[in-house]
């Protein structure tokens, strides 16, 4: 991170440790009752290439890395990311393909991860906000959001940053009007759109400036 202060709250002297709250992959999957599997499995005769309804092992390509997890087919990509892989940058807000807080990029296109089945995302290149930073340097889009104060509570920010990434990937030289139109799939409640408009334009300039390929 660019500032020492950023990590300050993490080191807070509190009555209990944060460390206990960080966990590995696949919470709950091993303990999920097999009763679910057996009961539902009888429901439909199996044909070629079917999976579930019980938990099935899947592999997701996330930020260039294969990640294995075991989920029921009904688990959405956002829930797989947040509940199973501790990738919590994308947020679950409307959960109905409206607000954009869950935006990730799949095979080069922005999508609402609340409305993609995790099992369906296999074989796709999934980019999440966790993959944007390189080492300690935040991505130029994230930096532009900081520079233009394009965030307040920050809960929509990850989604907007990913939507901006997708937008700039396809429109590297946007006008202000195009930038506004390009982010029409995301919503902010704190009202940070003024800064965001500037952030998109600034990020476009920075990225073009050769700081990123």
């Amino acid at each position: 991170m660019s500032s020492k202060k950023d990590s300050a709250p993490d080191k807070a002297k509190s009555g209990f440790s944060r460390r206990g709250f960080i966990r590995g992959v696949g919470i709950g999957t091993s303990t999920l009752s097999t009763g679910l599997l057996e009961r539902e499995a009888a429901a439909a005769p199996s044909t070629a290439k079917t999976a579930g309804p019980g938990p099935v092992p899947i592999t997701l390509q996330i930020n260039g890395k294969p990640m294995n997890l075991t989920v029921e087919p009904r688990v959405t990509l956002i829930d797989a990311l947040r509940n199973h892989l501790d990738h919590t940058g994308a947020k679950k807000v409307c959960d109905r393909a409206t607000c954009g807080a869950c935006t990730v990029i799949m095979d080069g296109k922005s999508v609402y991860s609340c409305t993609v089945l995790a099992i369906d995302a296999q074989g796709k290149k999934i980019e999440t906000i966790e993959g944007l930073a390189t080492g300690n340097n935040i991505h130029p889009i994230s930096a532009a959001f900081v520079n233009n104060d394009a965030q307040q509570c920050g809960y929509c920010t990850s989604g907007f940053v990913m939507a901006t990434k997708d937008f700039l990937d396809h429109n590297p030289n946007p006008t202000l009007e195009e930038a506004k139109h390009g982010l029409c799939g995301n919503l902010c409640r704190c009202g940070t759109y003024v800064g965001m408009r500037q952030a998109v334009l600034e990020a476009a300039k920075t990225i073009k400036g050769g700081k990123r390929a």
Partner: protein
Amino acid sequence: MPDTPNYSWPPMETRKVIGKPYKRVDGPQKASGRAKYSSDYNAKGLLIAAYLTSPHAHARVTKIDTREAEDSAGVKAVHVIAPAGAEIQWEGAEIAAVAATTEEAAQEATRKIKVEYEVLPHVVNEADLSKVGTRAKAAGERLRGDPDKGFQEAEAVSEGTYGIPVVTHCCLEPHGQVIQWQGDQVNVWPSVQYVSGYAGSLAPNLKVPVANIHVRMDYIGGGFGSKFTPDAWGIAGAELSKKAGGAPVKLFLERATEQMIAGNRPSAYAKIKVGGKKDGTITAWQSESWATGGVGGGGMPPIPYVFTEIPNVRLNHSAVSINAGAQRAWRAPNNQQASYLTCSAIEDFAAKIGMDPSEVILKNAGYTPRADTYRYQVQKAVEISEWKKYWHPRGDSGSGTVKRGLGMGINNWGGAGHQSQCRTTINPDGSVVVEIGTQDLGTGTKTIIIQVAAETLGLPFNAVKLVTGTNDLPPDGSSGGSTTVGGVSSSTRKASVNALVKLFDAVAPSLSAPADQLEAVDGRVRVKSNPAKSLTWQEACRKMGTSKISETGTNEQRNPMGLNTSGASGVQIADVSVDTETGIVKMNRFVAVQDCGMIINPRLAESQIFGAIIMGISTALFEKRVLDDQTGRMLNPDMEFYKLAGIDDIGNIMVHLDIRPEMDKRGVIGLGEPPAVGICAAVGNAVANAIGVRVPTMPMTPRHVLNALEERKA
């Protein structure tokens, strides 16, 4: 040493850190997705919980059977909130909660809880007062002067009906928490606007000592007044955790439930009559208003707003009880409604006498508590918006189908600092830690605390380490009512001055000067009269030996000692274009002139105003909670038909912060609420100015605008 050190803010011209546009300190964490909100915490062994809620607006639970849910795959605990006999007063009310090993299993299990209801009659809408029957309770008439005489003597009288519906907070991070109850210890990660007070609210419900409840919140995804207490979900989560043997339980509301029960702003409707002279002087006001904030009814907005000294006033109000989730505080509670009702009525009076409403507001500024400020602000806003060029007599807006209009709204709010304690620690190695049990709702609280401490200690911004967000830190008030910035800046200033005084005591002998003759500037401690006589900050701190200096400072709400104060007002102008064929209102520009006291960080202050205006534009153009009379159900508990403004819906926003020295001298004033107040007023008036007819009910949807245009034709 004097008994009381001098805590006053440094003069404007000498400030090095305060008043500078530092970027928000947690910006990189948020913009990189690394910030961990409470809803992001994934504890080891975490269970995820889901709610079963009432589908009825009014009912009694007659039977509840949770056995099948308890046996459901993955379920670890079921907690009944509404047992047989419980009366349900709104749709979405909590019936039971289930914790399971996965989110999907928890949700599925809630559907296996069998509940029988005795359905009771409901009322869910209040816009038409004639249909609410006994649900309206009159509050009793309030009188000032002689309104009958006032209207008799008036040279002109205007009348109008105005309404603003219930809107929901729609925080992006829903309400909820991760909570773990093991033995007599509770760890909780809530999404709350009151970190220091959370345990005190939760403890009696769990019958656990307050000291055993450990609260931690690093980030919060929106609150806006709706997140002050643990709420029913805090208790339900704790009970589930206990039943599940002390496993941590994550219970955050689903969006639909969030929209139904976790926060709404009361409505306000009124029939208003305004009387006055042809020169614009208002002499009489009469209003019959009604409002709802749920079962408890809704109080009267403070009307006439700001123009409190109108001589002849008659007020009648009815509180309407409806079967809907309870109101919560919303960014300047009842002020937005009051400003809308008042400014609309004044605009209509101005139209009646054929006068420019900005002139009418100026004419009546003497009725306000801050006449000079409003006069200055009206003139400033008129100038910035080029009002004289774009404003026109009502409806006189050319022959095209798209009509442009301007409208004005005003605001006023307190914003003095809340009770707050801060601890500033200076270590012998020169490092500085500031600790305070506060929360940053996205306003920039963390950033401005660091600025105040750095300024006070003569250090650069990045030399101060800040710790916030837990309840074992010095206590800070709730972040509501724009009280945080005044509270934390003052307590931080005092704690840091107190620490510095101690440091000067330790350093004085080395500089051969009395401690009260020292100052900390630019990373050095030096003698005021002879700045060359100095030590670097690190050298100075080494004089402390091995023990650290750790001092607290308290902002006493009742005696802020001039560091913070109350009373911020502003004038806002909306510039809209209305397509009279479609009724679609587009924002061209929005101008806000805001008085704000001493600004600690202009970048963040401006963001607060942008945010307030954008939220206000959203409510003015799009937002409305829709409840169905026939079924009692909310029809738009989502973000699809509960519409929020997007990035391309808000036009251009121009902010003018009134930072004249006489304003700066007033001290720090909260800025979250005031600029949120006048937007519906300004937008509604701009639409009336554009199309020549009052659209009586917010929001300014095609339906409302076209209906108003059609009624004029008819």
